[in-house]
């Protein structure tokens, strides 16, 4: 049956139909719905972990035991999970394992615009990147096959537009669950130096083999133009859709679904079939740099921005096509920013903090909205957990006068995520720090997920707190 699905739901279906038995994740826009949709399948295990590192390690444990597993997070969550990521590249997997990471070009709801593809390159892990919901479904299934075939975790990159756009998906029959036996294998799974030294060449050889696979894999494809334009475009993800919107079938397109490692021969052959090659990719020039490194002359970031989201307008403008005629009204339209929910108890707290002119170090969550007028109550927001550890350092540097006038605020889920380690440092190194935990017993900003402080698990069943 044809169904409209957001990209994230399609990933969840693809993982499930691909035989995924265990998912452990931490919520983060725009990745949250993958795990929420997966939690509706009753014959697979699904959980919210306290943070992305724990989630990734839990999924790794499930893979080690022989089941297909996954973990999901937003781009900055992969920073938290980077520690297991780099060494899981060395150990490889037992059951297939997929790490879904959702980037947020345009920063609709994020504190930075980092490009996750750098992690795939740095950790030497293959990365797939779909451009719509059907591909999200198909690629998620393919990810498990690649994972087991090449003995590697697979990174699965989403972006806001693919994650939150609905398009038509046709699902296929669910794969039969295969559980691999667990066998003790210290040389593969104990990454002490003596073993890790032997695994590193394996990783390099694996990358070479996956690059070879990617030359002919159906996940990458060339779409021949009708000959009316003499140039070609190399692209991936949502940029592909914008290019097709502007040029239809008039240009040749190399559409990449495997964005790490990149297929050298395929790119060279494509480039030699057209007179000029453009690379269209959001954020950093990863494909462009690769092309230039292998001696393929391409035009990329000198024409397309390194910041923000693209659209068909971005592409049309860059190629010098004229703007579409539109209407504008002269009235000044006041902005309508999101606000703290009606009745939110944090409003009263921020009112008092602001009135007393305190310095307030903030954290990641809906209380960041306390920085907006009329509350104007925050001084700093950096990353998950940084309010507590930042306050400690601020007070160490500022001494007793600073301590009296400075506090930090952190929500319950963020405190469980990584605020608690900062508080341990406050206690251990004895700074006089006032930490305010804004406990509304829910992970608010991402749309009300359970967490270790709420007393319920992802299915809504009672849990320890």
């Amino acid at each position, binding site marked *: 049956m044809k169904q409209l699905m957001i990209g994230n739901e399609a990933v969840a279906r693809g993982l499930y139909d691909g035989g995924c038995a265990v998912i452990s994740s931490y919520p983060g826009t725009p990745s949250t719905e993958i795990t929420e949709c997966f939690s509706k399948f009753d014959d697979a295990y699904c959980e919210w972990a306290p943070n992305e590192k724990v989630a990734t390690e839990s999924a790794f444990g499930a893979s080690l035991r022989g089941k297909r597993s996954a973990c999901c997070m937003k781009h900055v969550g992969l920073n938290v999970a980077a520690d297991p990521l780099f060494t899981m590249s060395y150990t490889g997997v037992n059951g297939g394992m997929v790490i879904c990471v959702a980037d947020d070009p345009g920063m609709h709801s994020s504190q930075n615009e980092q490009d996750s593809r750098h992690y795939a390159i740095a950790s030497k892990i293959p990365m797939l990147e779909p451009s719509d919901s059907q591909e999200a479904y198909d690629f998620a299934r393919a990810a498990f096959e690649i994972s087991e075939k090449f003995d590697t975790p697979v990174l699965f990159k989403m972006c806001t537009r693919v994650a939150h756009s609905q398009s038509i998906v046709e699902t296929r029959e669910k794969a039969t669950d295969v559980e691999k036996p667990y066998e003790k294998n210290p040389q593969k799974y104990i990454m002490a130096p003596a073993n890790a030294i032997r695994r590193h060449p394996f990783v390099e050889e694996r990358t070479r083999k996956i690059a070879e696979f990617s030359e002919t894999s159906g996940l990458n494809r060339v779409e021949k133009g009708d000959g009316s334009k003499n140039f070609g475009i190399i692209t991936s993800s949502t940029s592909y859709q914008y290019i097709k919107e502007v040029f239809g079938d008039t240009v040749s397109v190399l559409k990449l679904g495997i964005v790490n490692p990149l297929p050298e021969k395929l790119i060279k052959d494509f480039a030699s079939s057209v007179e000029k090659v453009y690379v269209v990719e959001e954020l950093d020039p990863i494909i462009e740099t690769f092309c230039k490194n292998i001696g393929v002359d391409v035009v990329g970031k000198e024409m397309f921005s390194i910041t923000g989201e693209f659209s068909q307008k971005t592409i049309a403008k860059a190629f010098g096509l004229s703007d*579409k005629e539109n209407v504008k009204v002269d009235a000044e339209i006041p902005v309508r920013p999101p606000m703290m929910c009606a009745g939110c108890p944090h409003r009263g707290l921020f009112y008092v903090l602001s009135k007393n002119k305190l310095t307030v170090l903030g954290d990641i969550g809906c209380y960041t909205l306390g920085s907006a007028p009329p509350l104007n109550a925050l001084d700093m927001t950096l990353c998950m957990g940084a309010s507590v550890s930042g306050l400690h350092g601020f007070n160490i540097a500022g001494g007793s006068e600073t301590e009296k006038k400075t506090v930090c605020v952190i929500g319950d889920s963020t405190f469980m995520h990584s605020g608690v380690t900062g508080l341990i440092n406050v206690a251990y190194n004895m700074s006089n720090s006032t930490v305010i935990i804004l406990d509304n017993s829910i992970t608010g900003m991402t749309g009300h997920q359970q967490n270790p402080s709420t007393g319920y698990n992802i299915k809504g069943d009672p849990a320890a707190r």
Partner: protein
Amino acid sequence: METKNIMIVGVGGQGSLLASKLLGRLLVDEGYDVKVSEVHGMSQRGGSVVTYVRFGDRVYSPVIEDGEADFIVSFEKLEAARYVDKLRKGGTVVVNTQQIDPMPVIIGAAKYPEDVIEQMEQKGVHVDHLDALSFANEAGSSKAVNIVLMGVLAKYFDIAYDKWISAIEKCVKPQFIEINKKAFELGYNSMKG
């Protein structure tokens, strides 16, 4: 068929999600390729929200850009004016005349422009405006503004009334179907068109 573009705009919490779900369901049932796009995350907290619905033989981009929208369905007056630059020449705005003040207006840092509908009309925009909130209340729930507006939009489409009703029945919880059918009917039979 060339791709048609509908934007649904409003204030977070007004029910744009159900409106886009209804349209998506209807258009898929009609056999079109469909893409619906919205950005989640901040919208639940009274911010400005926008949803793109595109349909045709083959739809690529999930977003609607300046001068591309055939219709803008706005749940609130100011939001119609905010996104009117997305409307193509000759496009139609369907707007609920309700006024919801944004924070800068509430705290006195900005003024709510009073004559946005007249301004749009002066620029040659076809504006179909109505007090959808009153119709929604008449149907039995102030929350049905979204479906009243879908009723107005339906007048511009060559899709049978019954098919819209059947899409409502598929998208709405059983206990709310009657209210929403009534709301749709009131919108469909409202004055202009």
